[in-house]
């Protein structure tokens, strides 16, 4: 039952998010999987935690802990060497400068694809981003970064002045455009396809103004060469509760990133 513990979960979530204690501080035996994703809105943290914890409790002493602050999450990555981290690949790329000894173990996939593209859609055409209110489900920083890849000729200064309306979900962003609550939506092709299957007229009215480069899906990282937590995550597709957790993250499975692949990619960078 989720209704009664919702308050408790919220309090626990906020407490853990702000205090940010390492997993070892609660119990030596519990392994924490921390989650932070600037690509999605944080209002779903409570349900993510409860869905993942339901799956994880069947697997042993694990817990899932969404974090709603980038600073706290990065602090945990630096300090909690026993934990596992599920994070945005975009965010992970930005941590490369910190030279942390991290192992990338898994990458999320959806429809057998580990990448996706963000698109900017609008009912209008030939409109510049400065003149628009753009609905997006990501953070302002992430959305500006994606828009800069869609509009490479626009200066960071001009993109910093954009009117960005943060909404909880990709489909909210699309519907905001459909119902004239925003001029454009920063969304994914998949969400646009979903809307087209639902609402014929809305899709017909929307133009794709621009498209980002392919973006990698969520990545799972940890400090040491350990496999237990990674195995637990890899098995998610095999159970109903695990599948629910994957769907909550917009994924349908994890794929293994071999150490060799990781090293190759790092050397390419």
């Amino acid at each position: 039952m989720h209704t009664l513990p919702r308050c408790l979960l919220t309090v626990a979530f906020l407490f853990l998010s702000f205090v940010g204690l390492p997993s070892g501080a609660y119990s030596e035996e519990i392994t924490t999987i921390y989650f932070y994703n600037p690509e999605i809105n944080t209002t779903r943290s409570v349900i993510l935690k409860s869905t993942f914890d339901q799956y994880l409790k069947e697997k042993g002493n694990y817990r899932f802990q969404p974090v709603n602050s980038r600073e706290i999450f990065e602090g945990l990555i630096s300090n909690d060497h026993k934990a596992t981290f599920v994070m945005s690949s975009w965010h992970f790329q930005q941590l490369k400068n910190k030279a942390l000894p991290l192992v990338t173990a898994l990458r999320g996939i959806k429809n057998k694809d580990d990448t996706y593209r963000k698109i900017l859609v609008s009912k209008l055409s030939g409109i510049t981003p400065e003149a628009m209110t753009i609905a997006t489900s990501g953070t302002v920083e992430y959305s500006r970064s994606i828009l800069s890849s869609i509009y490479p000729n626009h200066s960071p200064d001009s993109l910093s002045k954009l009117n960005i309306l943060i909404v909880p979900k990709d489909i909210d962003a699309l519907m905001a455009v459909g119902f004239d609550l925003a001029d454009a939506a920063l969304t994914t092709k998949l969400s646009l396809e979903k809307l087209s299957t639902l609402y014929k007229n809305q899709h017909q009215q929307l133009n794709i103004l621009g498209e980002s480069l392919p973006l990698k899906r969520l990545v799972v990282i940890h400090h040491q060469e350990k496999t237990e937590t990674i195995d637990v995550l890899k098995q998610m597709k095999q159970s109903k509760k695990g599948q629910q957790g994957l769907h909550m993250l917009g994924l349908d499975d994890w794929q293994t990133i071999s150490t060799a692949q990781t090293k190759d990619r790092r050397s390419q960078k």
Partner: protein
Amino acid sequence: MRILSCLLSLLLVSCANITNTKIAAEPSVSRILVVNTNNSVERYQVAQKAFMETLKGGNISTLDLEKDNHPVDTLQDVLNEQSYDAIYCIGAKALGSIDYIDPDTPVIFSSVLNWRRFSSQPNYYGVASEIAPEAQLTWFKYFFPETKKIGVIYSANNQKLIHHVINSVDNLSMQVIAEKINSQDQLAIKVKELLPKVDALWLISDPIVLASTSNAKRLFESATSQNIPIFAYNSFFVEMGAALSISADLPTTGRQAAMIVRKVIKNTVKQGDSVQFPAGSNISLNLKKVRTYKMMLNESALDSVNEIVDE
């Protein structure tokens, strides 16, 4: 006498729970007053927080009417003391008090159930309290693609809304079967007539249909007895037994209000855009009901759910 009056006015304003987030502002920076019905109520607090974050760095004063038994007097004193470029009212007490004063300043509102009363009032702008009806139906179809016939009971208050929905629902390949009631007495008989014709019952915010808790309970009992799931506009109904609810995401509502304030100050609000529907949704799903009614759930839709009830 004038000095005494000024002193008294200053005293009254200082007694009111007014807070300035940026005191020394440039003259060109717009002054905004946020009037909150009760900042200790989470839904009002969340809207205010999101509003303030969106307009971070602005010259914003806040006024909490929680323990104020004379809100009109307090507001009048605050407005006499300083002029504002826009007033954001959160909740009915805040909006009702401002409406009584009827200032020349543009008023922006949110979290007000009877928002329709203000939708055509000049100088009033805001965010409605429910998700757009078409958007609600779109979400219903997303979660339950096989649910095609949706029944709804409404009164004259929602005549226009239902007329609009029936005309636009073809785009969703759904059918809305609507039954109008003129008084609460007709509710039981209309429900009995409607339920055998539909796959699900859609609850809308209607002052006659949901005039009392007992009306709502009877509606749920009737639907349950005929294995008809209920879709609702507020998560409260999921705890009563609705299968799905689509309600407004409160932080988004606050952010939208902030964007309306910006447009109002720049005088760029489009004609007919005085009240917007909420752009963000908060979705509650009752998995127990989904199983009970053997509904076909689109599993991919789970990435949009905010709360699952499953006991």
